[in-house]
């Protein structure tokens, strides 16, 4: 990787962190409605993973989607505008936080029913297989999604049809407030892929470079037509499941222990220790990130609401 690319990944993680901190403020000010699921703590997962994709690779994820959307190339402006329900948002204000998408960036959403997008990922991959295009579909989901039927139907079908899907479980240890140990028959999620005869791996999701390395290797295999693969990425969300989570299910000491492994800090130390860059250069990047987010907040707040005519638009293609 070129130095610029290393810096870019740092920049993306900082934008995501700052963007979500601002989103939390906007939520508390009542400017964001509904649910808001923050990605803080998990930034290295999508940043590392998406950095390994080629433009032809499709990405689809669940509802904790702000970071993934940004990594896929959607600007902080359009993400925050969508969170504020504005006409300039990714879905024109009709989708909200959980339904960000931009198909021109090969980013297929943002899906809010737990596990329901896994079968959709098979369909995206099927289209590439059908048209003989060398591309992978990256499908991200949480540990909680591995307990729903869709997960099992989808993994089975992907293997039976040899579909080019990289299944990526972001194991942040809790499905809402229920820990893996209380919800899943096996705590090592990748064992579930074994049941479908699927090549699998597990990686530390706080280490961007480790995520990128394994994702790059697996995506090459998947693209080459060798069938689906499964990657478990161990991570942790520093904030609650969504805003207003009383967090009775975990001790603050546990959260603090994980926060010592902040993915941005780990990556920063790696960049400096391996002499790719300096603290000063990173500080410049952090300031640029801060600036992008500040401009995005201003853009979102000053953007227009969708017009009343939007209410009945796009129910059908052929109205």
């Amino acid at each position: 990787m070129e130095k610029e690319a290393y810096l870019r990944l740092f920049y993306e993680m900082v934008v995501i962190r700052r963007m979500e901190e601002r989103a939390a403020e906007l939520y508390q000010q009542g400017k964001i409605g509904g649910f808001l699921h923050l990605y803080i703590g998990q930034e290295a997962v999508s940043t590392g993973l998406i950095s390994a994709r080629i433009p032809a690779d499709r990405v689809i994820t669940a509802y904790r989607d702000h970071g993934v959307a940004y990594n896929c190339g959607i600007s902080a402006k359009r993400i925050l505008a969508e969170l504020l329900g504005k006409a300039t948002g990714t879905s024109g204000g009709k989708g909200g936080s959980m339904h960000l998408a931009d198909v021109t960036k090969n980013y297929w959403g943002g899906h809010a029913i737990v596990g329901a997008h896994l079968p959709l990922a098979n369909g995206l991959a099927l289209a590439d297989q059908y048209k003989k295009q060398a591309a992978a579909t990256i499908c991200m989901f949480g540990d909680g999604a591995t307990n729903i039927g869709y997960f099992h139907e989808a993994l089975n079908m992907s293997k039976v049809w040899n579909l080019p899907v990289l299944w990526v479980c972001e194991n942040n240890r809790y499905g809402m407030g229920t820990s893996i140990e209380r919800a899943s028959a096996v705590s090592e999620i990748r064992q579930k892929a074994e049941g479908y005869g699927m090549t699998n791996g597990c990686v530390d999701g706080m280490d961007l470079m480790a995520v990128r390395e394994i994702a790059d290797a697996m995506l090459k295999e998947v693209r080459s037509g060798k069938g689906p693969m499964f990657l478990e990425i161990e991570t942790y969300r520093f904030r609650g499941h969504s805003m207003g989570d009383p967090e009775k299910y975990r001790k603050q000491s546990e959260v603090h222990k994980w926060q010592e492994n902040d993915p941005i800090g780990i990556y920063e130390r790696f960049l400096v220790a391996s002499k790719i860059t300096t603290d000063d250069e990173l500080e410049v990047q952090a300031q640029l990130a801060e600036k992008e987010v500040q401009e995005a907040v201003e853009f979102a707040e000053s953007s227009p609401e969708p017009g009343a005519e939007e209410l009945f638009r796009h129910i059908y293609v052929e109205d």
Partner: protein
Amino acid sequence: MARITMREAISQALWEEMERDPNVFIMGEEVGVWGGTYAVTKGFYDHFGPDRVKDTPISEAAIIGAAIGSSIAGLRPVAELMTINFAFSAMDHIVNEAAKMHYMFNGQMVLPLVIRTVGGGGRQLGATHSQTPDAIFAHFPGLKVVAPGTPADAKGLLKAAIRSNDPILFIEHSTLYQTRGEVPEGDYIVPIGKSTVQRPGKDVTIVTYSKMLELSLKAADELAKEGIDVEIVDLRSLRPLDMGPVIESFKKTNRAVIVEEGWKSFGIGSEIMSRIYEEAFDYVDAPIKRVAQKEVPLPYNHTLEQMAIPNVSDIIKAVKEVL
């Protein structure tokens, strides 16, 4: 025009559309090697090959989910659910994904998706395999629901559905496959969302669709012998619902009976009746009647099952009550 069965008409529509557009493909349980549970896709596997006639695992959610995913990525899937009773296993994908995605993502995602399925009772398949839950699916904006009652409409509507860019639930009736009718050859399209008068008359309007069209036509023939002239409006599409021909007919006859195979409560008849009262109250000469399934899970026993499903004499009786 050839006189062919409903099965042949549907099969013809599928075959012609697959020949026309290489992005059209079929997926579902037993659609390939088996040739379709109702033999609709017999011969397709050998002709079009396994990539375009895809046998699936018994995984309804995965079938519909994959069909949705492939449709937004540019293919034109015709996904088959062996019966509409199994659609409940894919309910989330039909109503929460397919019906929402075009709107929720502000038009970015386009779903040229057809879900073919089979409904209806009367074959002693028991309570879980004999339902007519059409009204449930017609409830959701974003989904289109089509249910043909004649072979010609089946062909024309299915071809229109495959060419449409919206998600469409295409409900066939399990006891109509052998029904014969005149069907135009080649490119014959019936627009989705258009009701039609299947039999003109002046005394009373019957509003119906699918299998109940067949029974209503028989009832009308019987009533004609007594000098009662029935007009029959076939809805053909439940969503979008075209009330034009219904209201036009009602303004002429001032009397209506609505005939459906599903349960009466919260059903198609409830909706049609409400709309007639809303849109043509001044033309009402008699309370509108509904003929529908008895409010029971359909029993296996033949006699009991037949008691629960509407029949020709139920329709005749209702028509006489509104006259």
